[in-house]
């Protein structure tokens, strides 16, 4: 009986191909949207987002406008619950939302190595920490810009030598380029000697992040520049707030894609069943049970949906894996990465939509008035 379904699909291969392609495109978009949502989700949750704080200048949003004394880190370190503080100078080529944002973070190389969850996939820490203009590049940036160890990379007034490429357990970090703090502070146009954009605070295991944050702000209120301290996740979400709204809206796009696949496959299946309603009457005359006739239709719609959906999902995963896409604004970025969860979701959604799309035509085929259908010419 399965042969019958396959041969029917093959008989109308143009229609089958168009439907499968449509389903594939829609599921491709679905997975892309899903990956953006996942990226945002990762940015605001997880240990990196929850267990570290960012100290920024009060009422400032773009990294170029936040200027904090570098020695604040000494004062912050005195507060109970603080394990380590890393002063960071940020430089970005674009303060507005952009798909090809390049963000430099300048910090102490030893501290980067010891506190950030990075592993070098090329190059070595030694040359990064010893050369003044050395940089290690996140693998997303490296992919996007085609960078490899030994390359010279220039953007704006900054020119660095790639000492290594890293991957990170925090995907958004893979959009960063790390340099030494001093190198970035003395870049022309920044004039940031003794100043940094932000301090990243690592907490001890038992510390309450919000309490520590307010203590930091209270303590630094006496200093030359007032600060605003937030959890890293909340900080990034507020930095990207415009994008967050946009991405929140984009999930409707994901639902729309599911709806699109549903209506596409349902239309094809309804057409297919209506064309062959007499065949279903003949099958039932031969002795095929109504439920079995329904199963045949459901198999047909599910095959269409699964083939298209899985192809689209696989394409999306491939594109996400090799594209190194990211969207960013004001020094914070959201990485679009493929994930097993997303792939499984894509496949399950395709399966569910396939079954749903076949329900109406399946009932039609199962309950066909046999005699009337047979009397049709």
């Amino acid at each position, binding site marked *: *009986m399965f*042969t*019958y379904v396959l*041969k*029917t699909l*093959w*008989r109308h291969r143009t229609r089958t191909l168009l439907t499968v392609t449509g389903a594939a495109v829609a599921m491709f978009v679905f997975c892309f949207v899903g990956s953006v949502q996942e990226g945002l989700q990762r940015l605001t949750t997880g240990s990196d987002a929850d267990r570290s704080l960012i100290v920024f200048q009060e009422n400032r949003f773009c990294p170029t406008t936040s200027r904090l004394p570098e020695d604040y880190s000494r004062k912050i370190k005195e507060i109970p619950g603080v394990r380590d503080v890393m002063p960071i100078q940020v430089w970005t080529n674009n303060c507005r939302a952009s798909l090809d944002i390049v963000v430099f973070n300048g910090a102490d190389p030893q501290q980067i190595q010891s506190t950030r969850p990075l592993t070098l996939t090329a190059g070595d820490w030694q040359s990064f920490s010893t050369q003044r203009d050395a940089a290690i590049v996140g693998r997303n940036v490296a992919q996007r810009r085609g960078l490899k160890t030994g390359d010279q990379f220039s953007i704006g007034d900054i020119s660095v030598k790639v000492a290594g490429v890293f991957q990170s357990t925090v995907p958004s970090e893979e959009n960063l380029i790390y340099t030494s703090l001093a190198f970035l502070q003395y870049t022309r146009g920044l004039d940031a000697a003794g100043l940094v954009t932000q301090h990243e605070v690592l907490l001890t295991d038992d510390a309450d992040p919000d309490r520590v944050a307010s203590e930091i702000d209270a303590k630094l209120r006496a200093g030359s520049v007032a600060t605003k301290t937030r959890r890293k996740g909340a900080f990034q979400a507020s930095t990207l707030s415009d994008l967050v709204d946009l991405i929140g809206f984009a999930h409707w796009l994901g639902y729309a894609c599911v709806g699109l696949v549903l209506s596409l496959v349902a239309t094809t299946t309804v057409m297919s069943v209506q064309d062959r309603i*007499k*065949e279903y009457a*003949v*099958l*039932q*005359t*031969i*002795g*095929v*049970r*109504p*439920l079995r006739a329904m199963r045949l239709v459901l198999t047909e719609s599910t095959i269409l949906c699964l083939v298209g959906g899985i192809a689209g999902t696989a394409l999306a995963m491939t594109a996400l894996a090799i594209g190194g896409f990211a969207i960013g604004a004001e020094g914070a970025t959201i990485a679009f990465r493929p994930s097993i969860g997303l792939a499984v979701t894509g496949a399950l959604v395709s399966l569910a939509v396939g079954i749903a799309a076949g329900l109406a035509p399946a009932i039609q085929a199962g309950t066909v008035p*046999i*005699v009337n259908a*047979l009397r049709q010419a």
Partner: protein
Amino acid sequence: MALVELRGVSKSFRKGDETITPLDDIDLDIDAGDFVSLMGPSGTGKSTLLNLVSGIDRPDSGTITVDGTEVTKLSRSKLADWRAANLGYIFQTHNLIPVLTAYENVELPTLLLKLSSTQRRQRVELALEAVGLSDRADHYPRQLSGGQEQRVGIARAIVAHPKVVVADEPTGSLDTETSEQVQILLQRLNKELDITLLMVTHDSDAASIASRQLMLDRGKFLERGGDKEMGRQGEREVGVGNAGDSVAIKKFG
């Protein structure tokens, strides 16, 4: 007890305000091994009768029993199972599944039965052999002639070894020569395989090959002179389709 028994069967159709009652309180017995032909003017309810016997349609009243099973009582799903095991249906326009080969078309009914793949293959091959189409097994319906298509349809109807095979104008869309071949085939199936056949036809030549010839006209059965047991000629009224007439149809003798 007859293999097929119809008792007080009525069936009417509504067309707008009008109600057509082609079958009104009909009784009919068909014995196992009979080859019954059914003739009659267009629109008298011959196809309707076949559809009722095969359980793809339901009577408004009355009972139909086939080999002890009261098919009028079965659910749609149970009826499908019953047909798979007990009934073969030969259509006028063969109604083969176009995407399946001759072999696959004939195989369809066997997929609904509990058979091993060897048994299944054997049955399909025997059925194709019986209709003389073993060499066309891999052909698709569009690659077959009308007569060949009809023979595949016949093979499909007999492959499950049904108790009863019904045929609605099986030679209706064939030329005289092909029609004769199909008639001879049906006669052989009846004689050699002992298949009980109920065939509707407009062709009196086709009807004459049957062991028993019935006419249906305005709700009445007329048994024609082909009745071999009686050997009589001409038509006689054997039943009157009036309500309350419980012994309307019976064989003479």
